């Protein structure tokens, strides 16, 4: 019965797409019940799809596949012959799976590809938002589920979940259409997507290209008639051109650490450098080794600059403050030095920074401040952090007129002492710095090394002077870039501690890229 001629002929009808609905029901019922028949069916389809592949391949394609397989296998087999064999086997397995799946899914489009998304069906769910103002079709949208439609993210950040475990970060300003649970059209703005294996095929369409994901992490930036695609892990396929003008032969596969720009009206995508620090790719602040290293040094307060809606978070929490959201094109957060966020000040905004109204007391006569800074544009006198306000306060770290980091402390004898770094800050590059005041010396360390030192008496006490990040109290000295992982201490860190801290940071940076 299992391999009866009659049922086998239904295999043929199914493979050719000529099966009637009555025949299909008979075949389905038989396949449900009979494991041996299923095995025969699978092997029949395997032969059918393999014949299709053989017929479709040109001689040059066959040669290319064989050459590719030989190259990779031999490269892998140099250090370990077993690995090469396994890889060769994996290639065969993969090819088999691809073709079997193609055959099994014949007609699945008929079922899956129908326009099932009605306008009230949710296609994505909000995981979290940070100070977001979202509109759908011109109306404020406050639901957790996003239905099919056109959206504008006017302010803040969104973290959305699509089907297959795909998560997407969107940064204002952005205009996008939620088309289905597997597709977004990004008209303008920045988007980052994490796509697990189950989400393969998630697609971001832009005015200039279609970006199809194959299990990866990537970001898309659409602005001014160009789309950029940056791939951080895995692989995506970019099909250049507007939706009605795409030519599959011009598709490019973009792999990890690669990026391309597709400009409107230009046929070929252009290779560009990957922007590891442009996109917000995670709201979380993982417990990194760097954080543990800071903690071991017993800071009074550590501001990790997480991307949160509830302000400027401190560890311990009692020294938390507020993020001054101000007015600006982009949110007051950006990609940080590690995975996670940082405080974004200046650039295209006004009124930004951080403020801590109840900071820890700095009254031991000693002091240290550690942080990472990132400068977006040449600027003078931009403030990193200070509690200086007229006659009050005892420290400030800022850029001097030469574009170098400079620290100032007020001593308990009333003097103000300065120390300045030895080199100007490079643009769009993170720099680690530490200011220490021991009661005898005021010192500045940059990227782990001592760069300046000056005599300085014990610093004046400051019990509760408001601390500002990225701006001074009068907003006349504003940083233009990012600030991250800022920690305050009531003692002077020593050179070995600072070198170790910087070393840990470097390891962390390498790991997070």
């Amino acid at each position: 019965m299992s391999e009866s001629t009659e049922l086998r002929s239904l295999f043929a009808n199914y493979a050719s797409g000529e099966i009637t609905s009555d025949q299909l029901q008979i075949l389905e019922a038989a396949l449900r019940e009979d494991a041996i028949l299923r095995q025969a069916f699978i092997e029949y389809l395997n032969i059918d799809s393999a014949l299709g592949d053989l017929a479709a391949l040109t001689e040059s394609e066959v040669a290319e596949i064989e050459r590719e397989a030989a190259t990779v296998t031999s490269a892998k087999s140099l250090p370990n012959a077993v690995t090469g064999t396994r890889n060769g086997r994996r290639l065969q397995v993969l090819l088999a799976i691809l073709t079997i799946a193609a055959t099994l899914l014949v007609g699945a489009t008929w079922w899956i590809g129908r326009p099932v998304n009605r306008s009230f069906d949710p296609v994505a769910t909000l995981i979290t938002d940070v100070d977001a103002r979202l509109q759908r079709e011109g109306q404020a949208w406050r639901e957790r589920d996003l239905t099919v439609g056109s959206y504008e993210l006017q302010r803040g950040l969104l973290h959305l979940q699509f089907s297959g475990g795909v998560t997407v970060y969107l940064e204002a300003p952005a205009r996008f259409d939620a088309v289905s649970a597997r597709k977004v059209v990004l008209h303008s703005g920045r988007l980052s997507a994490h796509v697990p294996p189950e989400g393969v095929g998630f697609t971001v369409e832009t005015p200039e290209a279609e970006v199809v994901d194959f299990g990866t992490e990537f970001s898309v930036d659409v602005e001014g008639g160009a789309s950029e695609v940056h791939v951080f892990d895995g692989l995506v396929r970019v099909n250049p051109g507007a939706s009605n003008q795409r030519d599959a032969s011009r598709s490019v596969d973009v792999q990890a650490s690669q990026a391309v720009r597709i400009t409107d009206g230009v046929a070929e995508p252009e290779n560009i450098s990957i922007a590891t620090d442009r996109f917000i790719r995670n709201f979380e602040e993982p417990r990194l080794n760097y954080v543990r290293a800071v903690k071991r040094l017993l800071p009074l307060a550590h501001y990790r600059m997480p991307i949160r809606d509830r302000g400027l978070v401190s560890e311990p929490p009692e020294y938390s403050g507020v993020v001054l959201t101000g007015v600006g094109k982009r949110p007051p957060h950006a990609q940080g030095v590690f995975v996670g966020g940082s405080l974004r000040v200046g650039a295209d905004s006004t009124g930004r920074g951080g403020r801590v109204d109840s900071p820890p007391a700095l009254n031991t006569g000693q002091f240290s401040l550690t942080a990472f800074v990132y400068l977006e544009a040449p600027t003078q006198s931009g403030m990193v952090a200070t509690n200086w306000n007229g006659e009050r306060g005892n420290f400030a770290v800022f850029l001097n007129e030469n574009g170098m980091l400079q620290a100032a402390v007020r001593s308990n004898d009333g003097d103000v002492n300065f120390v300045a770094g030895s080199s100007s800050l490079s643009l769009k590059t993170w720099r680690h710095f530490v200011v220490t005041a021991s009661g005898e010396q005021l010192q500045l360390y940059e990227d782990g090394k001592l760069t300046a030192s000056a005599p300085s008496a014990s610093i004046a006490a400051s019990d509760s002077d408001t601390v500002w990040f990225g701006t001074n109290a009068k907003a006349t000295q504003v940083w233009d870039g990012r600030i991250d992982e800022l920690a305050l201490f009531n003692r002077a860190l020593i050179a070995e501690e600072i070198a170790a801290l910087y070393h840990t940071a470097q390891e962390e940076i390498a790991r997070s890229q």
Partner: protein
Amino acid sequence: MQGVALVLWRKFAELDDADHFRRWAFGVAKHEALAWLRDKARDRVVLAEDVLQIVARESAKVEKRLSAQREALESCLDKLPAEQRTMILAAYSPDVSIQKVAGQSGRTVAAFYQWLHRMRVRLLDCTRQVLQAEGL
């Protein structure tokens, strides 16, 4: 489809996590199949979802055998008379008119489909014999 498979395989060949590899490969396969079918198979019928799932799962379990079978297929094709081999591959060529191929073979379309089915069964039996000889 093979081109994508190669590119992706290069990356994932490094992985020792077979489960992850399989999940990912199926994801790619599904997407590629759907993309391909989007243009070509809109009016086709498909097995019920529960049957598709069982068949897909069991296919994955015997992937080694299926892979070997595909390798054996070429030698089985070579054993056929050249005229039959050419006719089979012509029927599978992309964008082919089945009426035209049937006409060239001197058969009606219905008769040609039946002939093609018999050839598939013969090739399948041949690959099974090859596999049996190899102890698979």
